[in-house]
């Protein structure tokens, strides 16, 4: 397998792709100020993998320990590594009826051998994507997909139906791989990369922003060898199903991490403020500790209850993944509210690193942001900047809404949990405790 370097990756995406950001055409994503940080993040993942170790993108987990190790890698790695890892799992569909398995396998082999990155285009914009024409050489597709993470900076777009397509709409039952620079593909980028000239005010989003793309397919030709589903509505839901498993798994693993981070920020700030033991602070911290523990427990239960596919890949338990998302996201805003409450408004109003550097204001910031011996103004400033960036600014708003939407939103996550919950076992327990199944006592005959 060819291991690409970060630099080789950068070169490979300078291919004339039609990208737009705020109405302007992006000539070179590796140089555009709002996209370059994302390219650098992807390049860093390439370099990290090239340096050695297991490539979790293309080698699926075979045990529960490996599943956790893979997720630990994918949480650190950029979003395109995760979407490519999800795409690699589609190998499971190679023998599925209605799927062109040989083409799919061949595509996935190429992705692996050339060390490519794939963005999964699942969610429909408007009516989604459909086949408008077929020819001996291939199909022509048109339509649009939304929320395609990293579409503008990967090599391939994997277009799949967003769910099972109704039998009378077979032209929408299409799964295909499309090169990002294919004729007729236009990609609109929305990104949380900081617009500020000095990105130090945004410690998280300056390094963890990824273009969230709206992809338009305007009469795009796809040769047959890249078409994996062609009109089979029965098989049409399988692609999104497999991709969804990995998207939700990463989201649940992140839920556990994020809850601990939110708690850690709150605990650190209250200690910096000198009030870790105030009763109302303890009250909030205790809620956050329960939440963080339950999120971690949910994700660990997803690993503990993992299942093996016929090919030996270990999948996290869908029930526990959904439950972790439903519980964690349902309380997220409330917990972030506690974090803000214990942190105070400096979350919003703490001046920038540039002000800290400015000779005219440096002394005042250091003097008034510090609280006691051992807690410097710099320390507190950095904490406030992270809390703001992560929970109360451009990136925080985007991340909150997007994470909440994974798995169908709060309602969808709950309903999926209900669907998967072992209801029969619970009902049997209820009957047992109620002693419903004990023999009904014989009533004495009534006398008149």
């Amino acid at each position, binding site marked *: 397998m060819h291991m690409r370097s970060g630099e080789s990756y950068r070169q490979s995406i300078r291919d004339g792709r039609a990208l*737009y950001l705020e109405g302007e055409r992006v000539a070179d994503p590796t140089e555009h100020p709002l996209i370059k940080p994302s390219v650098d993040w992807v390049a860093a993942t390439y370099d990290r993998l090239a340096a050695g170790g297991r490539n979790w993108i293309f080698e699926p987990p075979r045990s529960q320990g490996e599943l956790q190790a893979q997720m630990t890698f994918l949480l650190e790695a950029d979003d395109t590594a995760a979407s490519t890892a999800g795409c690699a799992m589609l190998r499971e569909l190679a023998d599925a009826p209605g799927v062109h398995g040989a083409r799919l396998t061949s595509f996935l082999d190429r992705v692996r051998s050339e060390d490519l990155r794939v963005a999964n285009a699942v969610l429909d914009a408007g009516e989604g994507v459909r086949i408008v024409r077929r020819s001996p050489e291939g199909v022509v597709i048109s339509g649009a997909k939304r929320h395609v993470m990293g579409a503008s900076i990967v090599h391939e777009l994997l277009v799949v139906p967003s769910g099972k397509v109704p039998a009378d709409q077979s032209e929408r039952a299409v799964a295909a791989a499309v090169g990002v620079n294919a004729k007729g593909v236009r990609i609109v980028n929305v990104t949380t990369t900081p617009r500020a000239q000095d990105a130090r005010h945004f410690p998280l989003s300056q390094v963890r922003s990824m273009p969230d793309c*709206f992809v338009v397919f305007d009469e795009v030709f796809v040769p047959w060898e890249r078409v994996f589903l062609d009109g089979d509505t029965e098989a049409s839901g399988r692609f999104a199903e497999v991709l969804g498993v990995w998207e939700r798994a990463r989201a649940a693993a992140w839920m556990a991490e994020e809850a601990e981070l939110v708690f850690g920020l709150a605990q650190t700030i209250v200690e910096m403020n000198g009030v870790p033991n105030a009763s109302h602070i303890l009250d909030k911290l205790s809620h956050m500790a329960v939440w963080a523990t339950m999120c971690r427990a949910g994700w660990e239960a997803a690993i503990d209850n993992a299942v093996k596919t016929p090919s030996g890949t270990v999948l996290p338990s869908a029930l526990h993944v959904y439950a972790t998302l439903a519980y964690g996201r349902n309380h997220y805003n409330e917990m972030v509210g506690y974090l803000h409450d214990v942190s105070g408004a*400096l979350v919003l109003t703490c001046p920038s690193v540039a002000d800290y550097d400015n000779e005219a204001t440096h002394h*005042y910031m250091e003097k008034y942001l510090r609280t006691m011996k051992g807690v410097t103004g710099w320390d507190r400033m950095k904490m406030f900047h992270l809390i703001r960036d992560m929970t109360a600014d451009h990136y925080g*708003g985007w991340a909150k809404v997007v994470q909440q939407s994974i798995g169908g939103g709060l309602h969808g996550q709950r309903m999926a949990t209900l669907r998967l919950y072992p209801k029969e076992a619970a009902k049997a327990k209820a009957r047992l405790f109620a002693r419903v199944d004990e023999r009904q006592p014989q009533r004495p005959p009534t006398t008149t």
Partner: protein
Amino acid sequence: MMTGEQYKASLRDGRRTYLDGERVTDPANHPRLKVAVERAARVYDSFYDPRPGAFNPVYIMPKSVEEYEERRALLRKGETDMTLGTTGVVLLALATSAPELGHLKPEYRERIYDYIEFVKANDLRCAEVVTDAKGHRKLRPNQQDDPDFYVHVVDRTSEGVYITGAKMHISGASLDHELVVLPTKAMRPGEEAYAIACAVPVNAPGVTIIDTTYAPYGDYDPRDYPVSGSRNCPEGFVVFDRVFVPYERVFLDGETSHAAVLAHSLGLWERAEGTLHAADDADRMVGLAALLAEANGTADQPHVKDRLAWLVVYATMCRAAAEAAMLHARKTEDGLLTPSPLYVSALKYYRSEMMAKVLDIVHDMGGSLIVNAPRWRDFDNPELHTALAKALGTEPLTAEERLQLFSYVRDTTADAYGGWSYVTGQLAGGGQHAQRLVAMRQYDLERAKDLARKVLKSAGRAEEGSAAGLV
């Protein structure tokens, strides 16, 4: 009265304001402040009356529900912004406290009323300057390893005092003319230097303001930021470095017993103003959720209706508490009307408790297009327009309407301004703990206990219950 242009010129007074690491010499022409200045200037123009003796209704100190309503009605005739809002609130807080401070020293009361006349006559804008740096939160002001963690008097002459310290989160400070400095909390004997309330011009020597703002960065399309693009306001980190304050601008000077009076009054008025907006905001949230459901074609789904009903109950309770706060309004000794602190705090608390869920519902109704819909300039681009118009338009809304809706919801709930709004909604006028304390203090607990005692009496156990310490 000042015109908008005169107001803009008045800010070029040598003030030491910094933003993003640089000194701002002319706020009206700074890329990230000019929108806020422009808005404040429009507010001036909207109230401008060239006749001698004319004044902005924000300077009216109402003495009855009728006067209060009349003041609101007059204010509604013009535009509004943060600087006008803080001016009204801080002056009302001073006026509310004047009688009590007058009992300490009659001149405090006189100085307060003179000051209100002064800002009224000169059409000035005032900032609420309350929250100190605080240092180690567990230690009293005079126990800190840096005595300047709370603003205090460091020197005095026969003409006035010198103050040092820093105040945080001062909304609009660098767009105002006056800083009304109040103690952040109750002080104790030994902390006399910290019991200082006074007014300081923004350009006074020794004042430095370091700003942050949620104003969008760079060259943005105002349609992408329908609220924050035109209605933003800087937050000041205000430093006082041996700032001289003449006695006529000192409203409290060393009387620790009364240090909290002003902050309590301010908190009350700040929350009271907030409650009026809270009711309208809640109704707007109901409307947004309903429109988003329509925009996404989910309005008829039972779970969507269920959650809309939840929002409707929330909005109705917000409205009810806001109305109750004025229905149970009280009067000060000088006849100034003040809303009921119990209902004001209860609403503030209730709203903050519910807000996380309110936003979750709105976001669930809208889905991720709220944050990742293409921006307006993409929509305008002829190479993209047709495809985007087709993909984004769904009956009964056009693509333009859906984009407007998503832009508004993102800007106000899931972007820089949304974050600012969520955090300040929770913290302005005191956090949840503070609201609970006020509610407990104001609630008629004895009456409640009397009602409970009746239960004991009806069971014939009043004596027994009392003896057991149950009542």
